[in-house]
């Protein structure tokens, strides 16, 4: 028993080390002096850590602007997706209406469409939409929010169904009898109860929106001030010599918000994912 425990611990720690290594390498390369990165003997440590790459990234490349763009898009998607998915999941779980099954199947199938396939139609769609509705056309952050929102919904609704279903209907009935209005029941009673699910789906939509590369490249063509971080990283790839120090420093900076967001919700995340699939 004890020996197998020990072995399990050892394996777990080894797996953790393998996982951690590339991340360690990223931070390490970000603080290594330029000369050391290029040297052939790559050493897994550095004796002269430097912030030169960070300074270059933050100073020259309009990094702050891109950072705020990415944050604005990702946070809008998280908030909107939580509200829209919650309402939809509530309706399809608690209420049987015509075409309900069709609607559920549509959510599921929508999940399977390869993103690359939709890029071209979406480009034309966003272009034309921009002519009708201001603020969501090409070169706008609004277009990114809308498209990411739509892509996050099938999974979010699917996850939220399990959570809404787990809330006993008796709670709603009791609240009704106590004279609570529908809005109060929905937002003050049920919404908090499904919070773990919202956290789990929120992490998903945040990560997808924050990491997105394809849509940002496709929709933001000329308005460079509306560019987001992943696409902006390309600046450091040069035809002759990639600026690895810059790439790694920018990557580290790009990872920090995800980490903060994630550490804030880690405990709830595991519970959240588990609750979505009731066995």
């Amino acid at each position, binding site marked *: 028993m004890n020996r197998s425990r020990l072995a399990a611990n050892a394996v777990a720690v080894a797996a953790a080390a393998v996982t951690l290594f590339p991340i360690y390498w990223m931070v390490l390369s970000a603080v290594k002096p330029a000369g050391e990165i290029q040297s052939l003997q790559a050493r897994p440590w550095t004796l002269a850590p430097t912030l030169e790459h960070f300074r270059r990234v933050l100073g020259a490349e309009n990094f702050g602007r891109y950072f705020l763009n990415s944050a604005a898009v990702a946070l809008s998607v998280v908030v909107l997706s939580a509200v829209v998915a919650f309402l939809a999941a509530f*309706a399809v779980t608690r209420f049987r209406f015509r075409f309900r099954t069709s609607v*559920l199947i549509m959510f599921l199938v929508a999940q*399977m469409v390869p993103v690359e*396939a939709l890029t071209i*139609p979406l480009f034309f769609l966003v272009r034309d939409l921009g002519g009708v509705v201001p603020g969501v056309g090409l070169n706008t952050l609004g277009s990114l929010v*809308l498209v990411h929102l739509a*892509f996050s919904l099938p999974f979010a609704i699917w996850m939220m169904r399990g959570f809404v279903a787990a809330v006993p209907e008796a709670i709603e009935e009791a609240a009704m009898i106590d004279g609570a209005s529908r809005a109060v029941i929905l937002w003050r009673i049920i919404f908090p109860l499904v919070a773990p699910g919202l956290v789990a789906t929120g992490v998903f939509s945040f990560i997808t929106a924050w990491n997105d590369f394809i849509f940002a490249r496709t929709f933001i063509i000329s308005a460079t001030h509306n560019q987001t971080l992943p696409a902006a990283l390309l600046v450091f790839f040069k035809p002759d010599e990639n600026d690895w120090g810059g790439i790694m420093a920018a990557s580290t900076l790009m990872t920090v918000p995800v980490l903060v967001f*994630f550490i804030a919700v*880690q405990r709830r995340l595991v519970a959240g994912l588990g609750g979505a699939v009731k066995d």
Partner: protein
Amino acid sequence: MTGPAAGTDAAGLGRARAVGFVLPALVLIGVFLVFPALWTIYLGITDYRLTGLAAADPRVVGAENYTTALGDDRFRTSLWLSVQYVLGSAVIGQAGLGFAIAWMLRGRRGPVRRLVEGLVLLSWILPSSVVAFLWIALLDRDGGTLNALLGTPGAAWLLDHPMLSIIVFNTWRGTAFSMMLYAAALESVPPSHLETARLAGASTLQQLRDVVLPRIKGHILTNMLLISLWTFNDFTPFLITAGGPEGRSEILPFYVYTTALRGGQLGFGAAVSFLILLINLVFALAYLRLLRNRNRDHDHDHDRDRDRDHEDAALPGPGPAAVPGPAAVPGPPPAPGSGRAPASREAAG
């Protein structure tokens, strides 16, 4: 009109409001997912190109794109590589490793668990472009970290073993989801059952097969469905190998990307995308079928679990996709796996 709904509708939602609640989601998904997907189907039967004559005036060519694709060796190779990629990195890699970690960490609290969980999750939440750079740096031929560590200078991992490289990469990248799902699933297995089995002399393998597996089948199937779909459509490793060398790691999404976007053959790319969608659909139907069968068996065994199982069964619904919208028929039959009659009065009223 909403009268008969009262019994099924604890929040007093009413039909109009229920539809109103679903509407924003439906409109968004309809406009940004379904409509472009239908457009893709249309493009698939044309010779639409990014540039040139066919760009201005695309012609409908019928099934030509499909016959070209199915007859193309490159497409068939891509399909086979995609199958390897899904089996290797999702079904074996992510699900296997995820289960192993969840099993080892089960029932424990404290720093080891939090550390391992945190790190596995970390590799999952990192931005894709970032992790791609990290893996290029790791596997690089000259000055790559792996070569430095193994003492194999000049070993060209990405050139000699491109598929293995991206399979290992995707396993590293995506194990977190399976781990979390299985960790949650294993918590639903009562420790007393395992204890009893152990006292009765069951080996670990026997415990897994007879005690754990039957209880977490639903989680396993859901997990397999999701990670297979994600992996099949995964584009991230393109940043690492770009499908090369000589197309030896060109899985289907890369094939679409290079033919449609780089080669400018939008019509052809759309046709291949539609084939990918069909393959996904086959995956999904197979899993849903297994899931339904499970629920049916389950209902006979565990009457008390009915209500919770019912929710699983409600998702695929009776005969998914093949019979769209059975709810449109007044008084739909209960879903086969549900084990209790759904409140069907609303549709009748």
